[in-house]
């Protein structure tokens, strides 16, 4: 029972190539159907995201032939010159495939280490293949295990907990202060790329109310329309400060937009209700000493960048723990796999013995004419019994080995010694 994987990802291929080998859901279904009807794979699953295009499968031929066949098909399906793929593809077999898919689900193979989105994408890909009937016992088992790995990694390690983008760090900090943002409001000053990302995250997290203010009223209206926000006149900035729980500022201005006295007056008017200020402007939009005011939390771009850098390091330091968890699940999967393998080997062995017995009896009894049909039947049964008795102990021993490496070695030995591989139809 082999598993193969062929794919490209952000590490091996440029974005141009990744775009060309992306699978739409229809294309994924078509590939699954064709690969099976052509007898290349008995089970298939296509995982295609912006950073990867991968085909998982259980081969019907020997893995090497299948791999070559799969590669040709991959190029043909995407209408690519196969030469374009050389050097950009990776191929894995068996344990390599298992480790790869577990690492993908854990977020170790992602561009942004530990990101959570990939787990949902793996789940969707698996669901789609399952519903299409493209998977079978092996891939089902492997992908269920991968999803479990992903879930455990997120619950038991810190690889995905800390924000690693400036915008998201700002939003997570807001949540550390206010809890859920569903009853809170934010005021956005000016417009910048990061500021815009913050707004997107805030909307994602269900912020109740957004307000925008800009020096140019026109620009403010435009932003308000895009984000479904309210417009605050630039001249009313000070009075507007009484309301929001957080202010995100990215204004291109030489001097501070929010000076300490202004924030101080606002805090007095707010009855010191906590105010979270994110200053994304360079030069800074909010006087640094405003951060010393009671219940004011002020973060500038550098503060957030430093947090992000620390968090990236913290995520990287979690890799060994994640790998440990992955190893544990690989072992579990291989144990299951070897159990299935034992059953297959024993079935092959019995079939081979049956063939041998019949051939032997046919040969030896052909010339013996004075043996009645009943006696022939009896001899046949005795021969069968004898063979059963010969293998009963080896079979028990084979099943009795619990150490995985030993078990795989035994299986291999049985296959080799009895020549089970060559005769496989």
């Amino acid at each position, binding site marked *: 029972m082999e598993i193969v994987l062929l794919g490209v990802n952000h590490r091996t291929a440029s974005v141009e190539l990744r775009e060309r080998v992306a699978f739409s859901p229809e294309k994924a279904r078509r590939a699954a159907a064709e690969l099976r009807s052509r007898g290349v794979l008995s089970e298939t699953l296509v995982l295609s995201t912006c950073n990867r295009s991968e085909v998982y499968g259980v081969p019907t031929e020997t893995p090497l032939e299948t791999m070559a066949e799969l590669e040709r098909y991959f190029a043909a399906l995407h209408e690519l010159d196969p030469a374009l793929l050389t050097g950009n593809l990776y191929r894995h077999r068996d344990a390599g495939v298992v480790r790869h898919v577990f690492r993908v689900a854990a977020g170790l193979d992602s561009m942004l280490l530990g990101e959570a989105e990939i787990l949902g994408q793996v789940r969707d890909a698996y669901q789609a293949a399952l519903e299409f009937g493209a998977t079978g016992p092996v891939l089902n088992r492997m992908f269920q295990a991968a999803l479990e790995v992903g879930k455990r990694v997120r619950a038991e390690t810190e690889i995905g907990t800390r924000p690693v983008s400036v915008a998201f760090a700002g939003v997570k*900090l807001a949540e*550390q202060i*206010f*809890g859920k943002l569903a009853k809170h409001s934010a005021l956005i000053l000016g417009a910048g790329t990061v500021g815009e990302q913050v707004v997107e995250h805030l909307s994602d997290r269900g912020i109740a109310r957004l307000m925008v203010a800009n020096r140019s009223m026109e620009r403010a209206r435009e932003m308000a329309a895009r984000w479904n926000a309210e417009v605050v006149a630039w001249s009313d900035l000070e009075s507007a400060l009484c309301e929001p729980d957080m202010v995100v500022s990215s204004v291109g201005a030489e001097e501070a937009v929010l000076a300490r006295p202004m924030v101080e007056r606002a805090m007095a008017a707010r009855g010191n209700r*906590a105010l979270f200020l994110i200053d994304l402007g360079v030069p800074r939009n909010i006087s640094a000493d405003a951060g010393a005011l*009671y219940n004011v939390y002020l973060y500038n771009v550098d503060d957030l960048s430093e947090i992000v850098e620390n968090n990236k390091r913290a995520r990287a330091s979690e890799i060994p723990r994640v790998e440990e968890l992955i190893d544990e699940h690989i072992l579990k999967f291989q144990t299951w796999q070897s159990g299935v393998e034992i059953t297959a080997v024993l079935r092959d062995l019995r079939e081979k013995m049956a063939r041998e017995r019949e051939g032997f009896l046919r040969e030896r009894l052909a010339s013996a004419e004075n043996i009645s049909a009943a006696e022939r039947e009896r001899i046949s049964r005795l021969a069968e019994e004898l063979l059963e008795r010969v293998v009963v102990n080896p079979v028990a021993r084979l099943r009795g080995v619990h150490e995985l490496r030993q078990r795989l070695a035994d299986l291999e030995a049985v296959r080799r010694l009895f020549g089970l591989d060559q005769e496989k139809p």
Partner: protein
Amino acid sequence: MLHGVPYEDLWGSLSFFGWMVGLIYLGLELVHRGRSVGPFVLPFVIILFSISHIRDVSPHPTPARGTIFALHITLSILAYSAFALAAVLSAIYLLQNRLLRRRKPGGTFWRFPALDVLERMSRSSALVGILALVAGTVSGFIWANRLHGHYWNGDPKEIISLLMLVCYATYLLVSRQTAWRGARAAMFCMFNFALVLFSYSIVNIYLSRYHRFY
């Protein structure tokens, strides 16, 4: 403590205290749906249990006591436990607030509950404490009246209990409405707990005539 309310000695009352802290925390966890405070509360409970097991309980004759008395003890210890929990939550609040204000959040910071959640949990806990203390004190007065014929005995325990009520009620008010909300309110909550500890220790052992262990 296999039978009824543990009002025989300090150790039993401490053990009971521990149980109550755990119980109230579970309640808070259910109401506020935040579980990350648990690890900070648990050591507290364990310490209380450990202290309560330092000494074997020596059974000694007890004067006849009734339901009201048992109620008085239970409610008072419940109140103290709730106040203890409010203090722990306020301490975590202060820690979290400090990390946020220094702009160097790291370590376990990201797994901590939000300031707002801590504040609300602390307030709920203080509210539970106040309600339990009011009921406990009232039952105490009733019991005192039965025993001595009058409600007010001028015992230091009575005075400090009323003081605690006033302080915690003030905390509830301050933490919600005034310019002191936030870190200052949290510090006030911890100061209030110092009062509880004072009542539980010095007042019991040296000052009060009627309250020996709780």
